[in-house]
């Protein structure tokens, strides 16, 4: 579903040229759960941003489904993002001025889903995430775990093909972290492709495959049978 060929990302400032990603070749199949690991600054997040079409690579090819999207304009990327990719962030990134319901509803608004269906889908996903009773609360009235559940609700409400999670348990205690990982795992079992950046080997254990990055390069790829925790 996702295929990267010789992907490169170089950041250039006035004096310094930094290679964030160097010759990345990676394929992620539909329904896979892939964890990307590596030390800080190795390019994990940069890779995730490119996968999420939030950033363009400097070189190489990126296939999202059948489309080569490496040189897409901002407009094309935005168009593709809607409904196809769900995001889960470490710091939740919910809009403070919107209630739980309204936050989850937001992607559907951009997809111009009719009101009745929107309501039904948001309620379904909130029920499923066990956060329905908080539907009219604002983010700051929720615990971290609840906020991340809302963020996951928002990520899946549009039924995306892939969920990109950037350290989804980074701001949570172990119990809430565990709960979030179980949710992601469950979504994956239902068919959603998940790509997750994490520092936690424990969380990575939920994935089918671990891609290790170092200095912008893929150094190892482990499939689940060979995990060493």
């Amino acid at each position, binding site marked *: 579903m996702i295929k990267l060929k010789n992907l490169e990302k170089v950041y250039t400032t006035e004096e310094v040229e930094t290679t964030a990603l160097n010759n990345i070749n990676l394929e992620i199949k539909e329904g896979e759960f892939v964890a990307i690991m590596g030390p800080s600054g190795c390019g994990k*997040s940069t890779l995730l*941003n490119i996968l*999420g079409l*939030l*950033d363009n690579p400097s070189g190489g090819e990126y296939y999202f*489904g*059948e*489309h080569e999207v490496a040189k897409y304009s*901002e*407009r094309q990327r*935005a*168009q*593709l*993002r*809607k*409904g*196809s990719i769900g*995001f889960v*962030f470490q*710091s939740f*990134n*919910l*809009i*403070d*001025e*919107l209630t739980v319901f*309204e936050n989850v*509803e*937001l*992607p*559907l*608004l*951009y*997809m*111009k*889903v*009719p*009101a009745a*269906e*929107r309501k039904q889908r948001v309620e379904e996903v909130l029920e499923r995430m066990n956060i329905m009773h908080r539907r009219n609360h604002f983010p700051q009235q929720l615990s971290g775990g609840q906020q991340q559940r809302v963020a996951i609700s928002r990520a899946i409400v*549009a*039924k995306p*093909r892939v969920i990109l999670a950037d350290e989804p348990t980074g701001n949570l205690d172990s119990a809430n972290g565990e709960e979030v990982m179980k949710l992601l795992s469950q979504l994956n079992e239902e068919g959603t492709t998940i790509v997750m950046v994490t520092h936690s080997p424990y969380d990575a254990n939920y994935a089918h495959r671990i891609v290790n990055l170092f200095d912008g390069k893929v150094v190892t790829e482990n499939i689940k049978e060979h995990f060493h925790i």
Partner: protein
Amino acid sequence: MQPLIRDGSLITNSTLNPMIKNYLLITLRSMMKNKLFILINVFGLAIGIGCCIVAYFNWEFDTIFNTHHVHADKIYRVSQVREFEGTERLYGYTSLPMGPTVRQNIPDAEKVTRLNRSWSNFKVEDNLFPGGIAYVDPDFFEMFSFEFIHGQPADLKDKSKVFLSDEQAKRLFGSTDVVGKQLTQVLGTELKEFTVGGVFKKQPQSSSFRFQAYMHFDNFFDDAKDVKETDWKTWTTMFVMIPNPTRVNAIHKQLQAYRENNNKVREDFIVKEYVLDPFVGMAQRDEINDTWNETWDANPRSAVYAPTIMAVLVLLIACFNMTNTSIAISSRRLKEIGIRKVMGSMRAQLIVQFIGETMFICFLSLVIGLFLGEVLLNAWNSLWEEMKLTSHYIDNPGFVLFLVAVLLFTGLIAGSYPAFYISSFEPVGILKGKLKLGGTNLFTRVLLCLQYAISLLAIVCSIAFYQNSKYQRDFDLGFNEESVIIAYVENGNEYETYRNALVQNKDILSVAGSKHSIFSQRYKDPVKYESKQFEVDIIDVGDDYLKTMGLTLTEGRDFQKDSETDRKESVIITQKMADIFKWEKPLGKEILWHDTVKLYVVGVVKDVYTVGLWAQMEPMMIRYTNKEQYTHVIVNAPIEKLTAVNAFMEKEWKQIFPNRLYNGRYLYEEMKEAFTVNDNIVKMFIFLGIVAMILSATGLFTLVSLNIIKKMKEIGVRKVLGASIVNITRIINTEFVIILLIASVLGCALGYFMVDLLMGSIWDYYQSTTMITFIVSIVVMFVISAVTIGYKVFSAASMNPVNTLRDE
């Protein structure tokens, strides 16, 4: 393979509304989070819009002046251009016989009317009423638009008919349905009977014809008894209606043939040309050029432009403030922008959202502004006696356009920067928390600086006008304006009778009679000394005039009582007259008046500002006149007893002249207008100053708060390294002190020119800005600013660094 956009098939047009609802929700909730700033901004903009409403209707009042007269574009005033000592000047008058002359000899001038004004007492049964009156020719009501409620305008050709405004009819009779009722005009000692011929709706205040009563012109000759229809020396204001515009030039040429008739009898007033002065725009031109005439002028230009300038300034400050605050608030919403972009929002949608938000705030301001506009209109109306503005929106598409333009202008200015700038950020940076928008940038600094410059301009203006009002109150006008009452009689006999009654009162210090007087009546004539000729103001006065009016003799002597020589050939002059003739020793100088009469200077008085401080002081010459000529009864009494003396004068008047209303007036009341204008301008600028300062202080507070947020880490690190509160305060404040200093220079420079421009357009004698004006203004601005941000800066500087560094 699944489709890329799985719900693409669900796209419908009816789903635009939920997004707008979503925007509105965010706008409202974001506003609630920033209540204070939004409140100040909404009210700031509302006041700006309110001021614009006042300025608009004030401007409209000027533009619609006389436009209700449907034949306005066909009407011309026959005015005369006088040539004197190489200069030309337009007078809104022509000689009285021009009326019948043009009517008989120039058929292209289809309708002709003359107009002379007078002031009469009217009597209904035993009650007396004062009232202005205009004597006009029968064509008058056919040329100018009057809405008749009762009676026929055509009856104006009947000399015995009087036509009243509905207001005057109600005052006299208590009703407007009064056609056929009797009305008595009191002309001195004579009573003249009239029948009410018609009642018309009172003319709007934007009309040059605001007389409350009109009569056939022939009645003028009963009022001004020594004037004859053939008298080329007497002036009238004359209008002609020319339906065929191609004939205007021809008529202009024909008119020149009659110059000789005037020039033969008025060698001192040579008419160079008769002109056809278009009625359209006449009221404004007369005001600008100070043209003498018999009709009402438009408002002074300063009264038209000043409110417009002020409204624009308030609106600009409010817009600048709104922009700064929008930037501040939107920087707190970076996360939302990032998320929206991740969710698939296009940049254009974000731009629409942010501009829409400011438009929403502008719309709120507009609604409040409409109400405030009414309040401010009332306040504005209470400042001016002669002008009452009323708002009217529905019948006024121009104004609706104006309001929409104001809304768009404000919304675009205030919303564009945050909309275009912030929406350009990449979501990665925002959501990773790498991007921090805050503090000041060149744009916000420039806005703050301009805001402060305008505020300072307002403060400078209010202080300068306040200082000027004090200066003008203390100004020595050359006569005693505070303890004088003037009453008007018909002739010397009346004067004598009234005077004899008044002198019984021991509180009256002196009583003088005169034919003319400073501030009420004077005439102008050219006088010659050797080869020099100047036109001077002349007043003919009686015994004790100098003493009673408080004129100060600096050289020579007063007129000697009953001296025939003084009556024939002596004059007392003002210092200014000695100056223009360059006389070092003016006493005994011989001047020639009317080319034949020799006059000798016997005294010099201190300069007299005959028209107050409005216009250039003219040289003046005082002549001694006969008792028979007296029309003024001038009374001087101590200030503290003036009210009692006035009451006594009124009581005596009623006994002596039971058929006439008492007409005594305090001299200072005649001059009150000068002070009213000054006080009103002070009020306007104090209002502007307060509004501008509140808005600017909010802007400063916003930017300082933002700057503190941006510098949190720096403040924390510095504190850890040992910086004191004073050090930190200096770091936060330096930038703003520089901005305020630049604003001070800009504001003071603008203030200097604006004060001079405004005062110069109103008065000829005034005190412009001084060093004190600027120093006080700058101190006021800095103190208000320090108080506004003091607490914020202090609390930031004294904050525990652990808090800020932990966050970082």
